[in-house]
């Protein structure tokens, strides 16, 4: 038996209830702990093996062993997390917090505080 206007109740309730959306950016967004926002490196533990850069599907990472730099183009990174899987030292992590928009594709460069460590090893 067809009903007439079974939606009316939901509609009325909707009219008098708070919006389900939040007014971002006034109220900052809350991300769950596992949210894949951006890649973070503990660069002092990095051994510059370059595995992450060879395995990153969009090739967003460049590792320069001679200069001791680890560079990521955050605009190319798709937050897949594969680099964190392959890194032998587990010095890469993915943490919440998305890349903010920008006008140019800037790269983030991390320098390994190298010399002393290298002499030790």
């Amino acid at each position, binding site marked *: 038996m067809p009903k007439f206007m*079974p939606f009316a109740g939901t509609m009325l309730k909707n009219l008098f209830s708070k919006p*389900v959306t939040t007014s971002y950016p006034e109220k900052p967004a809350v991300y769950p702990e*596992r949210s*894949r926002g951006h890649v973070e490196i503990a660069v002092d533990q990095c051994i510059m093996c370059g595995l992450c850069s060879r395995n990153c599907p969009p090739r967003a990472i460049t590792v320069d062993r001679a200069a001791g730099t680890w560079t990521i183009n955050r605009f190319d990174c*798709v937050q897949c*997390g594969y680099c964190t899987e392959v890194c032998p030292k587990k010095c890469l992590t993915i943490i919440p917090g998305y890349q903010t928009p920008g006008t140019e594709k800037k790269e983030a460069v991390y320098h390994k505080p190298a010399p002393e460590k290298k002499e030790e090893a």
Partner: protein
Amino acid sequence: MASKKSVVPFGPQHPVLPEPIHLDLVLDDEKVVEAIPSIGFVHRGLESLVKKKDFKEMQYVVERTCGICSFMHGMTYCETIEHIMDVEVPVRGRYLRTIWCEMSRLHSHMLWLGLLADAFGFESLFYQCWRMREQILDMFEASTGGRVIFSVNAPGGVLKDMPSDMLHAFVEKLDGFETELHKIADIFLNDYTVLTRLKGVGILTPEEAHDLGAAGPMLRASGIARDTRKLGYAAYGDLDFDIITSDDCDSFARCDVRIREMYQSIQLIKQAVDKIPEGDIAVPVKGNPEGEYFMRVEQPRGEAIYYAKGNGTKFLERIRIRTPTFANIPALLKTLKGCQLSDVPLLILTIDPCISCTER
């Protein structure tokens, strides 16, 4: 007297189409006598990337085939590779895959319900459906870290575990979801206006559905009980469920089948949470795939087929993806024949079209 026919181009840009497909509708007055499709507007060439990305990286490519069933694409690809390489995924990994699969089905069908409501002009109902869908997306984000692309699959298993308190919190949320679903489903299944738009529209007889190779809810709404989940991939072999069908063969039947599948998905998740054993979630995969395999899975839109061929190097030789929308287009053309022009958007929606994954 022979009447004069006119051709109305429909798409690739049309309010009801989130994605581009083009149909030339041959009209006799308001009645469609023929529909001629053309596709290829969003071809991305994902399959040919296999030459540049090795088989482990490829997982991250294939899961971008579709923004709705991305989990299932990733999973199917991984299972294909696992079969080629004879890798046995730990039971817990298989259960986790099943749970994520059913969550995908839930949010896909909820999205579809919203689009359907939008197609017949129920704007508010559309938003209510999408509001409910958001709960599932939040669950995805909490468990995998992504809302659309999950990246939790890898050949050999899954990358993230769900602790038992998370699983039980999900079950609790799904209880609330189910209560809300009852209310929303009532509108789709009983409202007078909705029924007049759906009942008896777009009949696809069981013979036609079979002959045209329809898939998924489209096929089951025509009374054919075929559900690839019964093949028992992931952990479906351990779970107890019936294939949902309807004998009405019309648009209403397709809506009804999808709604009942949502209840079933909730049941399946609960069963899986009850039965999930402790243990490993993945095994390491060594070596390169050599050989070929066909894999079939049941996506929300129907049966998807994956074919992969490896030649012993880290790059696969070929990968082929056939998505359910592609299989449903012939059936869509059949239902369009003889319908009214005003029903065309609705009928296109009833196959739950996903054009981007059709064209990959």
